[in-house]
């Protein structure tokens, strides 16, 4: 069985590395992108089961990225993971179809549980 494919979008190398380590350890296939613009290019050429994205990024931030996903890839499930969310961003992300809005201070087990839970939800969109 093919491993589930996750696109990890964050401008911070340290954060990309650690999240990749955690999720690869769970058997997921991970592709990374450092901003929304590069992530959109990846979405055009590959198929993903989930996108895990930061909000605050250069060139194209998370909200703009979510808008593009909603318009061009509505079938893709998205989790937002951010250092500081704020209610506005939360509302906007939810409005744009994000499944979850997580803090980067999350514990690993909780993160794994949420990612697995969302990926296992079939045809929910």
């Amino acid at each position, binding site marked *: 069985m093919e491993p589930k494919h996750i696109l990890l979008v964050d401008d*911070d190398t*340290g954060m990309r590395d650690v999240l990749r380590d955690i999720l690869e350890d769970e058997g997921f296939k991970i592709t990374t992108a450092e901003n929304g613009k590069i992530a959109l290019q990846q979405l055009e050429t590959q198929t993903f089961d989930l996108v895990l994205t930061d909000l605050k990024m250069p060139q194209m931030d998370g909200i703009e990225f979510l808008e593009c996903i909603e318009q061009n890839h509505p079938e893709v499930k998205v989790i937002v993971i951010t250092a500081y969310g704020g209610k506005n961003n939360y509302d906007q992300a939810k409005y744009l179809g994000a499944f979850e809005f997580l803090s*980067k201070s999350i514990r690993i087990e909780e993160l794994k549980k949420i990612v697995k839970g969302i990926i296992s939800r079939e045809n929910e969109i």
Partner: protein
Amino acid sequence: MHGEKSNYLSYPIVIVTPDKEALCWLAELEKDFFFQVVSEIKEYQKLLTGQSNIAAVIFDQIDQASEFLTLTKIHSLRAKTFALVLPAQLDHLENIIPDDLSCQPLVKPCQSEILRLELVRSIEQQIWSREQELLLAVQRQESWFSLIGQLTREWAHEIRNRAAIISLNAEISMTKGREQSLKSFNLAGIMEKIIEQCLKISKTLDSIRELSNIGQSRFPLVSLEQVIEQVLFLIKLEAPKVHIQVEKRGSVDLSLSLGESARLRSALLGTLRYFGRIKAGLSPVLILIENQQGLCLKICIKDILPEAIVDLALIDGPLQDLLSADPKVLDFALGIRLLKAFGSEVSIHRDESGGEMIMMVTSPRR
């Protein structure tokens, strides 16, 4: 402007004359202006030290015009200068007054009405300039705070990011260690990542410190008097009829940092706005006392209405309750919360016998 001398008290007019009797024709004007009379140039020089708000200088020793005007120029006074002359001296004035020093001649005693108009114009100009300066200072501080706010937000984000990476890496180490699968697990690599993130946090903290130093040098310590002046100015813009009396007890010479001055300003504004709305025409008295505990600011307001006393329990209570309170209470209470959050002690009570409200704010010395 007639009969509004109190408005002009802060803008004295200096009269330099060796002969006070010679200026008796100005007695009529004394009702409207605050005159400070000195008899000679040395006395004038002494008076100028530390005085920046002199609105006008009148002198009648025309033979010393050059010295008077140069002295005025050296002290960078914006004061308008007048020379009292006799009709016969008018023709020679050009020879006496240097080209680069301006001075308006007034023929005594017949031009006292012109003098009155000129003084009014001069004082109004000074008040306008002073208000513009204060407004500019307030705006500059506000824009600086806005910038600090933005940067603080960025740095908070940055530190939170690093802390999250450290936490996640530490958790990985812990889990792997517990699973005893250390053979396939690169502990040194993880530790290196943690150290790298700690160093990045340290760099961010350096930037914060650097900005704090820049802020301190760009906006050096503000004196308490300046803060009070700004507050009075802002209140005057909002409520021109409220007259606030400021009293100093003892020697109050406390310098405040930018942050402290902003907090104090915010709390004072909140308080005065609040009471100003409760009852128009109040005349609050601000008493500044410096004692061993630090700076003590006592605000006394007479004939206060019972509803003007805000319940301190509300100020200290949950923010949610406060947010649903009357907006004017909210404005006031937030100012008080701010002061308390930064270590000031605040008490509010009503003197039952005299119907006076007394608010005490004590800020500890740094």
